[in-house]
């Protein structure tokens, strides 16, 4: 892991490869060329490195994007990214900052602390970038600020796309293993005609959810034999529409069967795995300690300047804040 950014080694190797090819913001290079350069540097085969490169550019995976992707980088549903021969990549502004920090040209930037690693089945959740930056600023200004205050500034983990996160945040911040529940937004339409599901959790695939909802709405052979279980598991769905668009994001519309109300349908939809998911998190140390360690590890390095630069890069990211 890069000591001055907290970004993983493979991620750093990809950023260095991009830089060596002159792939700066607005100047993309073919992903295949980038992956060849990564293989030369660390010996990682293109198929593996491409998965990481895709993550670094996908807005639904991490709060601070390190790569600016061009071409088909896939969707959250069943559509995969195009082969690396057909996509291009360049460093994002934040990616440039990470490299400059690692070289010592800039003060350290806490990108790893913000992005976490649950997007690749790690245990560290992502947090709101501006909140982490603010907490570190507060710590630099007032070294005796309490852990409780720091935790409250950072707030709960920030899984992208606006899904609702619940769980024992105090236990998580204290560094204890915790299971968080990520819930899509499930709302009844204003005219009480249908239920809308949107803001899916990052580890849910809306296409799979649509298929599974249709399966749960179909008749089961054992329905007559076990009416109680059927009532608990069958979804009273008359119609299911995918109204996803680039403007609205992933959006499913569910119309209840005759005899069922939208409220009943909503309650049942909330309990379908995929509409909600769970994620196990376990910070290596209590959150305030992680923040304090970050500041202590880089004394007198103009940390505030680094934070200002990172904040600017985060605010200028597309589709953010």
């Amino acid at each position: 892991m890069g000591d001055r950014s907290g970004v993983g080694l493979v991620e750093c190797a990809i950023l260095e490869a991009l830089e060596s090819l002159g792939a700066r913001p607005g100047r993309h290079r073919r992903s295949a060329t980038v992956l060849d350069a990564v293989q030369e540097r660390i010996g990682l085969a293109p198929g593996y490195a491409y998965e990481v490169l895709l993550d670094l550019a996908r807005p639904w995976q991490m709060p601070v994007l390190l790569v600016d992707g061009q071409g088909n980088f896939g969707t959250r549903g069943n559509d995969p990214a195009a082969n690396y021969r057909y996509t291009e990549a360049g460093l994002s502004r934040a990616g440039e900052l990470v490299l400059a920090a690692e070289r010592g040209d800039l003060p350290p930037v806490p990108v790893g602390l913000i992005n976490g690693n649950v997007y690749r089945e790690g245990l560290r959740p992502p947090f709101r970038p501006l909140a982490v930056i603010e907490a570190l600023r507060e710590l630099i200004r007032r070294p005796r600020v309490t852990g409780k205050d720091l935790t409250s500034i950072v707030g709960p983990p920030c899984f992208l796309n606006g899904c609702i996160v619940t769980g024992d945040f105090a236990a998580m911040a204290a560094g204890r293993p915790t299971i968080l529940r990520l819930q899509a937004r499930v709302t009844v339409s204003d005219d009480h005609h249908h239920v809308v599901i949107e803001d899916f959790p990052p580890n849910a695939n809306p296409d799979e959810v649509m298929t599974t909802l249709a399966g749960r709405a179909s008749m089961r052979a054992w329905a007559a034999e076990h009416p109680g279980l059927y009532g608990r598991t069958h979804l009273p769905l008359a119609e299911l529409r995918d109204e996803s668009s680039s403007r609205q994001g992933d959006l499913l519309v569910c119309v209840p069967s005759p005899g069922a109300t939208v409220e009943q349908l909503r309650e049942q939809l909330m309990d379908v795995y995929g509409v909600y998911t769970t994620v196990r998190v376990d910070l290596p140390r209590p959150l305030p300690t992680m923040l304090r360690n970050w500041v202590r590890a880089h004394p007198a390095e103009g940390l505030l300047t680094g934070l200002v630069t990172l904040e600017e890069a985060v605010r200028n990211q597309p589709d953010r804040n």
Partner: protein
Amino acid sequence: MPVLAAGVLVAEGVSFLLVGSAALWLHGEPIPVGDADVVVEPAEANLHRLADALAGFALRPQEVPRVLALPWLNVLSVVTSYGMVDCLLERGRLDWQTLCQSAVRIPVADVDVPVAAQADAWALRRRFKG
């Protein structure tokens, strides 16, 4: 919700024993239920029913292995619309008869789910989770 997955497996005719956190929860233990762990009877016909049932409610049916592969797998984890179901296939091959001796049936909705005895469920949990 993972407990409902066990109910659906019973309704689909699969022979298994519920163990793990879901079993302990059904025994009345105040324990969070993360998934449904099931020890599966190793008979070939039962493995066919298991594969069919899982393909029917898995989020990714294409990832459910072919039935021919099941006798060689130790654990099969499937994400379903009721949550994660972990099928402990090796445990079934080794301990099916022993675990059945003290198993009980506990109702879930209107289905009687076969559940390992509380002591067996705790013993398995300690063995695998420490």
